[in-house]
């Protein structure tokens, strides 16, 4: 099953286009208000776009002035909360999809049992939704969504309302059931993208700013958001002989990564751990990049301190922070060796 999607929603300044291949799982990442929920609502049939079309496996979901109602789309939605129907027990919740599709009571319960087993929730069958925990409930919701045999499964931050302790188990379950299934998962968590998705779509301000294989997007981010997720410093510009020049005219020398034709659009990344912080401009032999910056934030990041200055970050030890008196507002120099800077086309 494949998906071709293109839609505009004027009121939300949303204009996104993308395609999905057969059996692919796509992670949708982006800051709050980027349009992730809008995307899901459009696909689920809960929102009608002003323009555009979506075709799932040859079937039109919307487009050409028509919009197929939600219940005839074969698109299931899994929300942040399980939203199990409180008046039905777990088994009948899972059986809801098959039952709505016209299967008999017995038959749909058989299907439900199979899916409950698949998510390791068999022992929950007879319970009412009020009697299961958040993690169990979300498991049941996964089974319920899959039992309706959707052509496309939408997951809206399915792990975000769960305790950190139960999220990994659900993530493993999802990894298993999403295998070779068409799914779109909205997430804030880079781990979800890495473990569950084949490709990543990054939305910012209602636009698709990046679309690519998960590993590629995280290793070679082309948007600030993806770079932030991957924990990398990103500089965009135009390639020159041994690095790139930013729009502001700043040169960044890069000794790692690809060789690019001068003049082509380029991106350079380097790890915050490779950045040194100086109070005065360093003068030394080894080729390095020096960025005069003003510190905007200093916060602990694991065992080290993350010193942020605009879109760049450096990781230094606690003692350096104390020694150099690194506080927000202070003007310092970030330096990174050109061998630590990786260049690639944008």
């Amino acid at each position, binding site marked *: 099953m494949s998906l071709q999607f293109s839609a505009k929603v004027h009121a939300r300044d949303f204009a996104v286009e993308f395609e999905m291949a057969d059996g692919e799982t796509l992670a949708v990442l982006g800051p709050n208000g980027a349009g992730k929920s809008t995307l899901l609502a459009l696909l689920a049939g809960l929102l009608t776009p002003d323009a555009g079309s979506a075709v799932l496996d040859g079937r039109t979901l919307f487009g050409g002035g028509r919009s197929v109602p939600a*219940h005839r789309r*074969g*698109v299931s939605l899994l929300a942040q909360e399980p939203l199990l129907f409180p008046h039905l027990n777990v088994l009948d919740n899972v059986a809801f999809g098959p039952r709505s*599709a016209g299967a008999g009571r017995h038959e749909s319960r058989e299907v439900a049992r199979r899916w409950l087993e698949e998510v390791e929730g068999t022992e929950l069958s007879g319970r009412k939704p009020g009697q299961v925990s958040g993690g169990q409930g979300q498991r049941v919701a996964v089974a319920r969504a899959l039992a309706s045999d959707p052509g496309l499964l939408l997951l809206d931050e399915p792990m975000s309302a769960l305790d950190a302790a139960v999220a990994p188990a659900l993530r493993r379950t999802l990894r298993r059931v999403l295998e070779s299934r068409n799914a779109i998962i909205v997430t804030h968590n880079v781990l979800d993208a890495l473990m569950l998705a084949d490709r990543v779509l990054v939305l910012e301000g209602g636009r698709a700013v990046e679309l690519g294989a998960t590993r590629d997007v995280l290793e070679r981010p082309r948007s600030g958001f993806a770079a932030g997720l991957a924990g990398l410093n990103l500089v965009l510009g135009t390639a020159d002989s041994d690095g790139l020049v930013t729009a502001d005219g700043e040169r960044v020398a890069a000794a790692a990564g690809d060789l690019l034709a001068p003049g082509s659009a380029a991106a350079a990344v380097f790890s915050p751990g490779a950045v040194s912080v100086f109070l005065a401009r360093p003068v030394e032999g080894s080729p390095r990049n020096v960025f005069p910056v003003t510190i905007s934030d200093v916060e602990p990041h694991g065992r080290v301190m993350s010193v942020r200055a605009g879109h760049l970050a450096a990781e230094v030890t606690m003692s350096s922070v104390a020694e150099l008196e690194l506080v927000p507002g202070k003007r310092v120099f970030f330096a990174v060796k050109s061998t630590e800077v990786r260049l690639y086309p944008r």
Partner: protein
Amino acid sequence: MSRRSGTAIPRWTFVLAVLGALFILLPLAAMVARVRWSEFGALITSDSSVDALQLSLQTSVTSTVLCVLFGVPMALVLARSRFPGQKVLRALVLLPLVLPPVVGGIALLYTFGRQGLLNSGLEVLGVEIAFSTTAVVLAQTFVALPFLVLSLEGALRSAGGRYEAVASTLGAGPTTVLRRVTLPLVMPGLLSGMVLSFARALGEFGATLTFAGSLQGVTRTLPLEIYLQRETDPDAAVALSLVLVAVAVFVVTLAHRVRDREDRP
């Protein structure tokens, strides 16, 4: 019973609350005190009393069914859809709540009565509604319908549309969603709406008298019978009043039972 500290309500509210409760309970007690128990059985089993009780129960049940039939779709439309003039429509539909019942009766008379708006149409059909049992049911439905609409609409709004959205993405069509998700979710609200409607129908007096008259066995419901007896036989009026209270209490209790069972996980 344990009292939660920290969320204490001011002491003086208890005093006023008790006074308010007394205001409601004392008249009931006074009425019960006036019942002549020795004649109670005879008084409530007289022909006119039995006729009135039967008619009241029968018409109130019918009205409640009509309220559900029309009130559920009305509440759904008001709570789940948007259209221009919706607020005005809601206000108008709920008008019988604040309208004096006599006025309602007059309005009905000029709609379904012999000189009424729909008269020619009804005449063709050979139907005469005013001063018939049908008129009683119409009058009761007219005043009781807003109670059902109001309480169900509130329940629908507080339930929200999220479960319904999920149900539709699971492949359930609108009617299936209504039957298997929406209605079960708002069942407590629907039940209290039904109880309120039934109680209102049972107590209906003004609109019934105006629109349906007071004909024994045909349009003279229990409240009308009580009012009539009050003039001639106060003891019978008190006894019948007690019957009316008993029926009301019975229905409310029954509904609570059902609701509690529904609520249980």
